[in-house]
């Protein structure tokens, strides 16, 4: 623009970057409110309903937290790979493989006791999801394939595999031909904490997040990821086994998505069915970038995004706003927050 100059900030913005974020969110909500006004809906009341539905009531907070779990775990996984500058677009498929792996035992051996069943379900989910992540990493390092393409393509294979299992060998004979496994036995279900509505999945997510944070911050491997992400040549020169690092990180990345698949199948659906695929793997990529790959911010962003989706349901029910409005708001928030990121690293001055 004439008369304007863009200058890179010399010092980080600090607490004011929080302000930028708030302004960005406020800006997108204001735009959304304008849209509602055009439709003849009172925007203030609508935003109130959205907020109460998502965070303003006990039910809302519970629902948002539960909905955030799979998004959070997938996002934690892709962020790990992104730190190494390996572009894992395959969380969707790794999540599907985790769900398939976790469902195998309760379908094949439903009579196992919980102390055997649940740990082996988790192991299966982690191994299946992890392998689905490690395979494209192996090809990337050994055959110089592009991991973006391979992970993306493997998503479709994973979803077809899931379809095959629930339409074919795992179909519940009592389901009138509908594609779903039988309901898992109680021993295969991750239950709720005491009498609350929160599932133990929330604890899983918390513990995993702490472990990942410790791993990336305090271990040698975590440091190697940082170096490998910053400069591959320097990393190799420093003697870091880069190939193994990439494959290992992609395994971990896939394993986290697989764990999310396990929790969705076990805790929320209590079975495997095609509707377990809800684009969490793709949402996770956006969340990871919004949160600048920081585990704590990822938790916040997942919760907010989940809350937005939950709140929009209340908005539909109470004010008859179409479902598409939720997607519009989501898009506006993401765009303006990413655009706001510009102002945290640059500033605009008069010439």
């Amino acid at each position: 623009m004439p008369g304007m100059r863009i200058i890179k900030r010399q010092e980080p913005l600090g607490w004011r970057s929080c302000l930028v974020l708030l302004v960005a969110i406020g800006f997108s909500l204001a735009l959304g409110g304008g849209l509602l006004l055009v439709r003849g809906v009172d925007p203030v009341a609508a935003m109130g309903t959205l907020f109460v539905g998502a965070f303003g009531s006990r039910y809302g907070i519970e629902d948002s937290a539960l909905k955030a779990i799979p998004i959070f775990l997938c996002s934690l996984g892709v962020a790990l790979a992104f730190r190494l500058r390996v572009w894992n677009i395959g969380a969707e498929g790794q999540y599907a493989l985790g769900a398939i792996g976790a469902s195998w035992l309760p379908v094949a051996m439903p009579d196992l006791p919980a102390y055997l069943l649940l740990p082996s379900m988790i192991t299966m989910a982690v191994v299946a999801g992890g392998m689905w992540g490690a395979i494209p990493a192996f090809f990337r390092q050994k055959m110089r394939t592009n991991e973006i393409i391979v992970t993306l393509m493997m998503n479709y294979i994973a979803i077809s595999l899931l379809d095959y299992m629930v339409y074919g060998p795992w179909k519940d004979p009592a389901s009138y031909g509908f594609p779903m496994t039988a309901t898992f036995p109680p021993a295969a279900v991750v239950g709720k904490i005491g009498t609350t509505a929160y599932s133990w999945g929330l604890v899983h997510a918390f513990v995993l997040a702490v472990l990942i944070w410790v791993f990336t911050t305090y271990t040698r491997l975590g440091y190697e990821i940082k170096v490998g992400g910053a400069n591959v040549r320097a990393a190799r020169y420093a003697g870091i086994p880069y190939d193994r690092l990439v494959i290992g990180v992609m395994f971990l990345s896939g394993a986290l998505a697989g764990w999310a698949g396990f929790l969705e199948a076990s805790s929320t659906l209590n079975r495997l069915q095609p509707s377990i695929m809800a684009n969490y793997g793709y949402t996770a990529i956006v969340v990871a970038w919004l949160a600048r790959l920081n585990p704590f911010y990822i938790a916040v962003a997942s919760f907010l995004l989940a809350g937005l989706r939950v709140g929009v349901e209340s908005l539909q029910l109470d004010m008859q706003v179409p479902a598409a409005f939720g997607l519009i708001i989501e898009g506006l928030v993401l765009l303006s927050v990413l655009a706001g990121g510009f102002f945290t690293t640059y500033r605009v001055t008069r010439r």
Partner: protein
Amino acid sequence: MRRVCTGIVAALAVCLFMGQAVAEDLQVGFVYVSPVGDAGWSYAHDQGRLAVEAMDGVSTSFVEAVAEGPDSERVILNMARKGYDVIFATSFGYMDPMLKVAGQFPDTVFMHCSGFKLADNMGNYFGRMYQARYLSGMVAGAMTESNTLGYVAAFPIPEVIRGINAFTLGVRAMNPEATVRVVWTKTWYDPATEKEAAKSLLDVGADVIAQHQDSAGPQEAAQERGVYSVGYNSDMSQFAPEAHLTAPIWNWGPFYVATVEKVRSGEWQAEATWPGLAEGIVDLAPIGDMVPQEVKDQVMAKMGAIKGGERVFVGPINDQDGVLKVAEGETMSDEELLGMTWFVEGVIGTTQ
């Protein structure tokens, strides 16, 4: 800051006020699996909702595009918490979530479409769409010249397979030489995919395209190639006026109104209901002008017979491989129809 606070308080007050204003009304909630503006499945249900909305002392609301599984449980739960008296959930995958919620809210009436589970306060309902599909098959069978018909179908589940079979029986009642080719899209609603699937059927010589899909994509494909089509869900003739022969359609209004009326008068009981052409829950859209009058007369005569109690799935019926499945004079039971996973003779495709 103060202004913001006032705004929030005002918003809450509005919410509370709205809650009170409708408290005396009977509140009826609907859960849809796709957006209502699609001329398809959810659109048809929403037409039914509008009939309920027009009743005195009843207010309705809906949530659209709700994924099956955990999302649907939350939406149904939310409606129950907010004091809705009757909740209609209109997709198969809502069955188990609804059953869970029904257990927690014994005073709310839950109605699930297309499933089979029941509880004291949860009934299920569906329509015998296969009856209307048989009639649409008769029209299609009379109009084909290549003797190859195409059928764009969503998922290989009994409901869809039953519809394809009824359509094929209708086709072959008019034209014993004709075959029906099936393509699975593995989606209920995806206009582009559905249209591509229809084109692939046109490429192998189909000259009538039928569909078990929720968009008008296949209709458009047929119109572009100058061949005929059979719609679904609602009268789709506006999307393909030259191609559209007819469509088996849903008419949920009377059923929804009657159900809400029963709840209000306290006569409602949880049961499994499966009404058909006779009750008007399914129907045939007006047959296009390109169809000869004698064919129309034949179809209307058959419709009268079905309304009078004639059955569609009556032996002898062979399966795809020519093996006799239903003997001469036998009729298939509702249980057999609900669990149908094989194709009748004349269908080309697999049930996988």
